């Protein structure tokens, strides 16, 4: 059964048709690249999955159950986590604090319940280890490299039992070495049975980690094929419209 299944999803803003009748499904542990030019509808589609927008029509199913996602919190409750393009980290807090932001662990001391700093640092450290990242839980985000920041943002998605992680341009603004780190993170997520949707403009990254590539053009899905059966040239053609559809 598919972790996520979209059926005939459309979204229009007034007269503008941003997404038009898109259907797709994502299996457990599968990494799918979502590609398309600016304005192709990638962001709108992802925002509907993440609970930022309600679709104008069509249905979203998670584990076979139809859901209506009014708010990001509801998507999260269904096991959908997002790594935002700008990572959504607080520079002035530690890595552990950022991983647990909004979901702090607490422990009771007599009548009061206080933050469990030690417990959160320990869990965050385990997550960083699982991601094979050298990020240290008690370091401030301000002092971290781009790759370490990515690890923090990704570790956040692993706190709960995520089924699906949406990554919006995670490799857009970081160094080559850090890109390799992020791609590693994605492989670790897959290895744990977590599905990943990777939104990216960087063709080599998408070809390296994804199992399948979906191409959007002007709000419509124009391709959905196994990565090994495609080529960067073909995908480029599909994105630009040089190749009509496959």
């Amino acid at each position, binding site marked *: 059964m598919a972790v996520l299944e979209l059926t005939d999803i459309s979204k229009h803003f007034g007269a503008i048709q941003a997404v038009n009748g898109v259907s797709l499904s994502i299996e457990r542990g599968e990494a799918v690249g979502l590609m398309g030019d600016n304005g192709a509808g990638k962001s709108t589609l992802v925002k509907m999955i993440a609970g930022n927008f309600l679709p104008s029509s069509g249905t979203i199913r998670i584990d076979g159950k139809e859901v209506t996602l009014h708010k*990001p*919190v509801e998507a*999260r409750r269904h096991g959908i986590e997002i790594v*935002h393009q*700008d*990572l*959504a*980290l*607080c*520079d*002035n*807090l530690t890595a552990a*604090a950022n991983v647990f*932001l*909004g*979901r*702090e662990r*607490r422990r009771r001391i007599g009548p009061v319940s*206080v*933050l469990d700093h030690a417990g959160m*640092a*320990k869990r*965050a*450290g*385990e997550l*960083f*280890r699982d991601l094979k990242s*050298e990020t*240290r*839980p*008690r*370091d*401030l985000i301000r*002092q971290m490299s781009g790759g370490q920041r990515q690890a923090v943002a990704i570790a*956040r998605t692993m706190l709960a039992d995520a089924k699906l992680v949406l990554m919006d341009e995670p490799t857009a603004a970081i160094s080559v070495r850090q890109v390799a780190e992020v791609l590693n993170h994605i492989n670790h997520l897959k290895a744990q049975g977590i599905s990943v949707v990777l939104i990216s403009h960087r063709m080599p990254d998408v070809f390296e980690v994804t199992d399948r590539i979906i191409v959007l053009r002007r709000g419509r899905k124009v391709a959905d094929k196994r990565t090994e059966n495609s080529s960067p040239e073909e995908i480029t053609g599909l994105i630009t419209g040089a190749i009509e559809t496959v």
Partner: protein
Amino acid sequence: MTVSLDDAIAHKEHTALSRVLTSQTFWVLLAVLAACVFLSFATDSFATSKNLFNITRNVTFTAIIALGMTLVIITGGIDLSVGSVLCLCSMVVAVTMHAGYNIYIGIGASLLVAVIVGAFNGVLIAYFGFPPFVVTLGMLSIARSLAMVLSNNTVVFQFGPDHDKLLALGGGSMFGIANPVIYMIVLALLTGFVLRWTRFGRYVYAIGGNEKAARLTGVPVEMIKVAVYVLSALSAGVAGIIQTGWLGAVTTNLGTGMELQVIAAAVIGGANLEGGVGTALGALVGAALIEIIRNSLGLLGINAFWQGTFIGGFIIVAVAFDRIRQRR
């Protein structure tokens, strides 16, 4: 990789010592202590128990409000209304008790007014997106005007049947420590605890660090913001009630210009006006430095008109110090 997981988890970028040495609060504390030592030798009157009693008590009014202000500043906001709110709350407790109500009703009414004022500021800022500077500037004007309306711009010095209780509350002392100092210490410990050990405190820092990120991760940003403005107004209200008890009279120019002194205390103590940084201890230390400057100028026979220059100079030095530290 030879570093074990436990090492990595335990690792902090700075050791306890280096963290202390790079903290602005520490250096300001050092300046306070150095000034105290210097003044003890340079003047006969500084290290007398009477003068120290006075200094510690005078610090409290600024320090208590600086605690509330620090919360606001950590979220990246500012509260210019605290001086006027102090006056309004003083006037409410004074007028209520003058009308014959007991001290509990007087204090209750005063704190209720503080909560309403803070909630008004907070709701406009958090839910309607007004700039904190503008909203609280408006409240600065409104609150003082209401205090004038309430008292018909007279001096209130008769506090009804519980007159003596109110005076004891603010003017008394326990174990040789002025009551206001005890309140200040309790409130500082409470603020420090909240900032370090509660989810609320964590969210206050998160909002100041990256408000958008806080919102995306599910932090109730609006509610927290309203809460910090309410706490700021409450701190001004508490300071106002204590000050009323200490002075034994309320005039409508009480707390005029105090907002600047409070903000100065918070900033000298290490709070960053860009948000995300600040501590309860810093608020106390900053307030202490300002009071010692004030006190020492008098004792050293320097014209009191220089006071503003010294305090202003310290604000700039403290911030310059912080910038140099950041760059390193």
